[in-house]
């Protein structure tokens, strides 16, 4: 069976902010949801400078490990970075899917990126599951920590370093 040539990617550019962000984008779950967690992070470039024109999107299973089917839970988030390169989401911790470690799929778009970057955020309180996760195991052990969020008070932080020392692991998906 023939396959068709893929449409190539181009940069999101600098002028998406009037169009793509929407008010409820960072709220994967509504305020006040039982068990809601706050995620935050900063996107930085190869010089360690914040990236103020990135768009972060997330996709995840619900607390029971199901994708996109539970009422009132879409599982999708969208947040542009601010002047300080920061993004944030309100969500719930996903359940395990097919025995794998709970994780959130993350896509990064930015001015300067010709192709979106795909990564994953894992949870710091899932040491045993993380140690057995086939995706984390495919990553150089020295770089695995770039994929695991860390606790900062009430917030889980997941910083995204596009280039350089401690560069975040990105996947070919």
């Amino acid at each position, binding site marked *: 069976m023939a396959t068709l040539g893929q449409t190539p990617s181009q940069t999101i550019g600098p002028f998406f902010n009037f*169009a793509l962000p929407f008010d409820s984008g960072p709220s994967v779950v509504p305020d006040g949801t039982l068990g809601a967690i706050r995620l935050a992070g900063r996107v930085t470039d190869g010089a360690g400078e914040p990236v103020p024109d990135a768009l972060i999107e997330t*996709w995840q299973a619900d607390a029971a490990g199901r994708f996109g089917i539970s009422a009132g839970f879409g599982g999708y988030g969208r947040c542009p970075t601010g002047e300080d390169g920061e993004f944030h989401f309100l969500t719930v911790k996903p359940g395990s899917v097919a025995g794998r470690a709970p994780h959130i799929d993350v896509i990064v778009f930015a001015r300067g990126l010709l*192709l979106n970057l795909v990564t994953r955020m894992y949870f710091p309180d899932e040491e045993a599951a993380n140690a057995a996760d086939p*995706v984390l195991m495919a990553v150089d052990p020295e770089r695995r920590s770039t994929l695991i969020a860390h606790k900062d008070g009430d917030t889980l932080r997941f910083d995204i370093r596009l280039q350089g020392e401690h560069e975040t692991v990105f996947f070919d998906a």
Partner: protein
Amino acid sequence: MPNSAHPPLDWPDYKSNRLRHPSRPLVPLPTGMDDLTAPVLGEDRVGAFDADLTRQHDGEPIGERIIVTGRVVDGAGRPIRNQLIEIWQANSCGRYIQKNDQHPAPLDPNFTGFGRCLTDDDGGYRFVTIKPGAYPWRNHHNAWRPAHIHFSLFGTAFTHRLITQMYFPGDPLFPLDPIFNSILDPKARERLISKFDLDTTVPEWALGYRFDIVLGGADQTPLED
């Protein structure tokens, strides 16, 4: 890279790419570890005039009215149904409504430049808009972007998420644009150029352009419906 249609990560001709591209190779996801689902962003996100960018204000925008239509399919040619498409663009003078656009060209009070629609059962979509102008972007001396419309698309897997740009046939700026030329395969580059289409063109009203979109790799194993 299995998806050779896409630009490389590292493309120094595009200045702001230099400090932003990963320097390490992408890590292949182990087979079967893809989350093969995608958000379904349905009708609650699309308003009545979202697909007609010429009717979002009291008056009509200045510029050349056009129709942009096509189909969104996967690598096996199957339609991507009821999925969200978002587009955004400059006005006919090459100016975006966004505050950080410094190009000294006029804003048009009757044009926002943002559109949305859902694909139909055949993967089809249709926007009415005005043809965007070229604009300068300071990447290098006398740098101008060819006229383009930005497209944002969702497929059947989140990793098929695509943001791209649609161009217009015959643009003299093509050979000079490092963003367009970051796509190394000339055949893949051609896929971003819409085609003038007389069947889409409406007499005495607007020219029509076709832009078909294929999401997901040609490296995927095709499945029978």
